[in-house]
């Protein structure tokens, strides 16, 4: 099981450190991280996935109470989106799809190198 937390944050130095510090302190292992510019100037969007949904629930209010986090929510499964960049003998491949689809492709093609992450809107 994967829980995905999406946040709209101030695009300022130190924000990632503060958020990751909270996860470290509460012993929540973060599986994937996507950070990027978004539709609002001076803001950024952060999408984190964790493997323990109960812990995601527990940390959500703490995240919401942070000054630099404008919004934080746990994203419904239907909106999860996986992405992978893979390298094998034939060159590089990139792929998007559901978490299961991407896991399936990686399992079958066994790329020499890959990175897989999860995003959501």
């Amino acid at each position, binding site marked *: 099981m994967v829980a995905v937390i999406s946040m709209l944050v101030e695009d300022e130095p*130190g924000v990632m450190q503060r958020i990751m510090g909270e996860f470290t302190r509460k012993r929540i292992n973060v599986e994937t991280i996507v950070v990027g510019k978004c539709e609002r100037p001076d803001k950024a969007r952060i999408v984190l996935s964790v493997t323990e949904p109960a812990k995601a629930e*527990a940390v959500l209010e703490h995240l919401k109470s*942070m*000054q630099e986090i404008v919004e934080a929510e746990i994203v419904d499964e239907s909106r999860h989106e996986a992405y992978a960049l893979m390298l094998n003998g034939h060159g590089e491949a990139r792929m998007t799809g559901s978490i299961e689809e991407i896991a399936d492709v990686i399992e079958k093609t066994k790329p020499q190198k890959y990175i897989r992450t999860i995003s959501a809107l």
Partner: protein
Amino acid sequence: MKGSRVVVELLERQEVEVAFGIPGGVLLPLYDELVTAKFRHILTRHEQCAAHMADGYARASRKPGVCIATSGPGATNLVTGVATAFMDSSPLVAITGQVATGMLGADAFQEADSFGIMMPITKHNFRVTEAKQLPKVIKRAFGIATTGRFGPVHIDIPSDVFVADIPEKELERDYPTPPPRRNLSKLLDAVKLLESAERPTILVGGGAQWSSAGPEILKLAEILMAPVVTTLMGKGVVPDAHPLVLGVVGMHGRQGANYALHNCDVLLGIGTRFSDRVTGKVSEFAKTTKIIHVDIDASEIDKNVKGHIALIGDAWTATNALISGLQSRSIKQSEWKNRIKELKAACTCDFDISGEPIKPQKVIKELSRYLPEDAIITTEVGQNQMWCSHFLEMNGKRQFITSGGLGTMGFGFPAALGAKVAKPDKAVVDVAGDGSLQMVSHEFATSIQDDIPVVVCLMNNGWLGMVKQWQKLFYEKRYKATTLGNVPDFVKLAQAYGADAIKIEKASELKEGIKRAVKSDVAFLLDIAIDPEEDILPMIPPGKKTSDTIYGRCKFKCSI
């Protein structure tokens, strides 16, 4: 306007009365502006104590305390004080100098990553890397510290920002901090649950102290005929003499209070985080009890104990809402009311023990009797703190200030100095242990130089008493690193700073000593030789249940 002038100007506009601090290289431009500042600056002898004084000031005045330290070691010394304030939700604005922005990350002289270090122990913190942000940051810092759940905010200011020119119009913009969302949507559920409760109990925490909700809580208790028990941080919110008030709960709590806490069917927790020192073994806590949790901070809900009705709002507002919800309803008068009377009566052991060596309980008894009725009492951490927690009688006017969450030894003396600055007309007494006092005894210098006469009531037993007690009870008396060897001579130490001091070895001398000390024009140390073998009992051993209590002199078990 110069950056350093901006800092002083904005502190003045926040109506800051006093800043506690120590200057340093990168702070020279700021201290140059402090020469003409409208507020007082108190030079402490260690930055940790600057933070504790600001904290004590904040707790006594309910206004944000300001402390200042230089870069590197100044900032790291401040850490313990800031963490203490954070754990007890005390509003501080802590300002540190930093090396110039161009030097950041170069391991410059006196550089430490204060921004990173302070991050997990502050409500929020800022590093000002562009001078024009400075006005916004200072205004935001005060807003954040004093909005919703209070807490310390740290501002790290590089030296070049202090000398940069900032357009004056930047000072005129406002940056309001929105209050946290209140959510009393479960009020009706809470009212119904309380109405139908057979054995309701109210647990009062530090949130009620910050929100000054004591009288409202008593009113609610009277409507419900519910006993009121408090956490360490809630001590003093309600007067101990009230028939429904059973005192402090927890590891060293009053047995009547613990009984009510663990035998109620509905528990109303107001402004408390249900810390491990209150709940004991959390898996055993309130297994069948229904809990209503009032807290200003939504992130406290479900943090330590789970699955209850949550009212999110400040203690005062939520309590008043409960009162209006319950007033029109008929509360049945149950057997619980009689049980409370029995509990109260069973918890009145006589601790007016005369004779020598002086028993610590006797010292607290005499303080309860002879301190002025509106005195402020601070404590250090350890046995001295728990003796106060258990035995000190609060009357609703006295204030109790202690490091509850972090448990910082050396907090009480500087906090007393800060409280005295906030309330110069009140008697302020630090109940200390000889271990704690030695961590901060240099602040006698501050008290003399800045004319802050507080009383230090030293419970001197020559041990790091609380750790010794645990070694005695749980480690077969294998004492290690807990004896303090009866040095120094505290009377001479205090006198060396210009404070007044007496040694007390007879119980009969306590009364006169206390009366003399609170009248003193200078700091006054009462060096009281207490029985080194007297423990703080009763005690629920860590991680154990109330049935495992070690009673000592407490006769509660026999009488209930």
